[in-house]
């Protein structure tokens, strides 16, 4: 905070002269980089397609409207599959995430040196690969269909659920655990009385949150052949049946809105 003395008055400036110059230089360099990058991108773009885009979009719009409403009769089953993929996948993930979370939390892991890193590795590796990629892999292994979708969603969700859950376990009030230990309770009793009641709200919140995400993820799994409404989307796109595509998109939108509403209600009831 520089203060200049001038004619007996103290003038305050936000920056010193040097700071101001560096500041302007920073902006100048930033702008230069932006302009350069713009030119590079522009050079690599076929501008004809870009200028053409509004016309094509308009063309698709006219082809896709109105949606082919009678096609909805064939969408009930795929939507049901999608719901099942998300729900079963979430349940399976939770069953596997709970032990992983207990092994990963610093205060409950049996061994910080050996078991905790393994649990963390499981969390990181399942979290970092997208469910679409898991689905591609699983279709190669167990063949296309709903089951591959369920497993893909389950594997992808383990890391997410386990990570949030182990953070909740690490944040519990330790004195409650101490109090239960002091009664002479066994290790499992300490878990059931000292730890579980404390993490139950977090667990319920995580489950519903992940279910909500999985509903959205499972709508695209069909694109690679793992069942659900994405399968219909894929086949409609392949035969350029635009009125069907627009109907499917509308159905997915409605489906996701409903699932978000449900999960918001459930979470509101818990917290």
């Amino acid at each position, binding site marked *: 905070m520089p203060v200049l003395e001038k004619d007996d008055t103290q003038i305050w400036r936000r920056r010193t002269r040097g700071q101001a110059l560096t500041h302007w230089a920073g902006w100048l360099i930033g702008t230069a980089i932006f302009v350069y990058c713009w030119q590079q991108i522009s050079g690599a773009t076929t501008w004809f397609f870009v200028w053409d885009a509004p016309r094509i979009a308009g063309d698709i719009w006219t082809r896709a409207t109105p949606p082919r409403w009678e096609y909805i009769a064939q969408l009930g089953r795929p939507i049901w599959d999608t719901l099942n993929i998300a729900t079963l996948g979430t349940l399976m993930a939770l069953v596997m995430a709970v032990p992983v979370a207990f092994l990963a939390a610093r205060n409950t892991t049996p061994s910080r040196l050996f078991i905790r890193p393994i649990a963390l590795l499981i969390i990181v590796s399942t979290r970092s690969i997208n469910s679409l990629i898991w689905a591609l892999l699983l279709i190669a292994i167990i063949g296309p269909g709903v089951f591959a979708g369920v497993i893909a969603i389950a594997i992808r969700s383990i890391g997410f659920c386990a990570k949030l859950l182990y953070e909740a376990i690490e944040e519990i*009030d330790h004195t409650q655990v101490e109090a239960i230990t002091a009664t002479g309770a066994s290790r499992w009793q300490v878990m059931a009385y000292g730890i579980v009641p404390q993490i139950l709200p977090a667990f319920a919140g995580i489950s519903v949150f992940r279910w909500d995400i999985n509903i959205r993820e499972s709508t695209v799994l069909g694109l690679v052949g793992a069942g659900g409404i994405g399968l219909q989307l894929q086949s409609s796109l392949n035969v350029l049946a635009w009125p069907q595509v627009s109907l499917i998109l509308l159905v997915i939108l409605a489906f996701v809105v409903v699932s978000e509403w449900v999960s918001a209600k459930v979470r509101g009831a818990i917290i």
Partner: protein
Amino acid sequence: MLRLEGLTKTYKTGDQALTDIDLEVPKGQVLALIGPSGAGKSTMIRCINRLVEPTAGKVLLDGVDIAHLSAGALRRARREMGMIFQEYALVERLTVMENVLSGRLGYVGFWRSFTRRYPQADVDEAFRLLDRVGLLHMADKRADELSGGQRQRVGICRALIQNPKLLLVDEPTASLDPKTSRQIMRLICELCAERGLAAIINIHDVALAQMFVARVVGLRFGEIAFDGAPDGLTPDVLTQIYGEEDWEATIEKVEDEDDIEAAE
């Protein structure tokens, strides 16, 4: 009944919390442990039931050395020692009844405790204890709905339902207002007298300790600096335990408060 022999605790950080403590607590004696923060009061209590592992020395409860027990035997020994905590340490999301019954965890198997099917004798005893501390009507409330004083009463019930020989009490009144503090201290001392329990009570409030207990032990830097009757706590002794300060006010306050009590 309880004897500490050369009890020493050195934390991993190198802090010497307790140095060679020798202490004998006979059956039925209520003892107040005073001393400045960091003197090792909490550590000492936790070394007795091994929530903190002692570095060296013996903790003899009726001749059994707790400091060298296996995990299973330690759990059985812990049943003999009820513990009461500063911040009550109730399981907040369980009901009052579940919290009281959790004192029986050392006696019932996992499945029975998990499904909350405690033996009828335990349930009867829980109701009796809640009635004794005046909280019978709260049995079905969740623990986090209770006030501080009520929570501490539930904590007391949880410790007593263990049917212990010894109570370990860690700052029972530090989170309570002065009136509730006295009520809680009185309740603990009464219950100890009723059941012939020994108790070690960590306490900050010297005046409160003087009002209720027969023996005071002062800790300073992890060593016993005073051991005697409460009226032996002269300004000189308090200076020795806590360091230089004007102690006349503290001691006078005790007398004033006694007057107020008498007037009430």
